[in-house]
């Protein structure tokens, strides 16, 4: 069983190796004509304005949290979906109850305005 995962590791190594080789080779082969202007932050040729790491809008954290909640829901659904045909009516009713609970949460999140993006 674990043997099936060997190709995954192997391919990951091949991909990472390719990336490392490409980065190293291109820095070795490319010309190096550094200048102060070249190393400045690129903003379409304008002088850089303001701070780079401005405060991140809280919305992104809310989206990440919501994603965790609903992705967990999906994780519960995978094993259920694989065995759905053998579970019959019981499986269907169980999942409907589970989904209704989550749907209530979803409606709450929507009403709270967490899905709005101003």
């Amino acid at each position, binding site marked *: 069983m674990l043997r*099936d*995962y*060997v*190709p*995954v590791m*192997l*391919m*990951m190594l*091949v*991909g*990472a190796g*390719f*990336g*490392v080789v*490409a*980065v190293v*080779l*291109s*820095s070795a*082969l*490319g*010309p*190096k004509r550094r200048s102060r202007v*070249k*190393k*400045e*932050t*690129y*903003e379409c040729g304008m002088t850089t304005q*303001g*701070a*780079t*790491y*401005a405060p*991140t809008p809280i*919305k*992104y954290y809310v*989206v*990440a949290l*919501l*994603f965790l909640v*609903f*992705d967990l829901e*999906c994780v519960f*659904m*995978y094993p259920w*979906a*694989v065995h*759905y*045909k053998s579970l*019959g*009516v019981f499986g*269907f009713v169980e999942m*409907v109850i589970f*989904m209704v609970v989550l*749907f209530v949460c979803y409606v709450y999140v929507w009403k709270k305005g967490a*899905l*709005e*993006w*101003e």
Partner: protein
Amino acid sequence: MLEYMTILIIKTLVAFAVSLLIVAYSTWIERKVLGHVQLRHGPRRVGFHGLLQPIADGVKGFFKEELIPDNADKPLFLLAPIISIAAAVTLIVVVPFGGKVHLFGREISLYLTDLDVSVLLVLGISTLGAYGGILGGWSSGNKYGVIGGLRGTAMMISYELSMALAVIAVIMVSGSMSLVDIVNSQAGMWNIVKQPFAFILFLICGLAEINRTPFDMPEAEAELACGFNVEYSAMKFALFFMAEYCHMFVFAALVTTLFLGGWHGPIVDGPHWFFLKSFLIIFFCVWERSTFPRLRYDQIMAFGWKIMLPFGLLNILLTGLWLLVF
């Protein structure tokens, strides 16, 4: 054991080479199709109708000057493209190019591995690729990069939900999470017939996952200069670019596998059907890019959370009912 490892390593390298070739020529297809859509020729200087253009571009990538801005966080800046390409390439491992064939007197499967949880692996690892984008944007020390990385990640995780819901409906019909089993379950009838809504859902969410127009938020060139890869140059930029096209190929392969019957087709089953369908999907990705304008960011997020998510849940419920009744 030795024989097993030898075959495995050869297969891995061949799959990697084939995928790189497909990635290279997807860029050619993209430029050629976009060109002809806009009544231009597209690339045609290097080789016959520009057929050698991708190779020329790759060589050029190695010989360009690479810049690391003073503001950048150097270790992360170097690491980000490597994460991106490694995650994208790893996805190829579960793509079933074809069934089993007889070669050199032994039976060889045209897929690298057939996991019980292939689908989960694809969703998980494709999300790991988002790290490349967000780390690249953040470590550049450029505010467009930071904004691009943040937006891209938020969009990807939002659409991943609906994508997972679409896939769950397919798993219910096929009764397995292994991609090979899913393909084999479609020998008689393709899943696109049984699951038309899941197909539409998967197609739209997939375009968002691989950051194609109309969902190309991380690198909205009109608003964010070039988004998360604005400070990248030479091969590091090319790695991001290749990772993106690799994702596009894997997406096309997944649509083929999950909905279009994989390597099954009329007359003779085989990898030729897989490649034909995959290239049709890649063509679709280019075609819709030349057709649709980019959406506004708040519209994209609202669409993902308020329309796609309930639609996906409803599709699972309907699938459940349909399977119970019939």
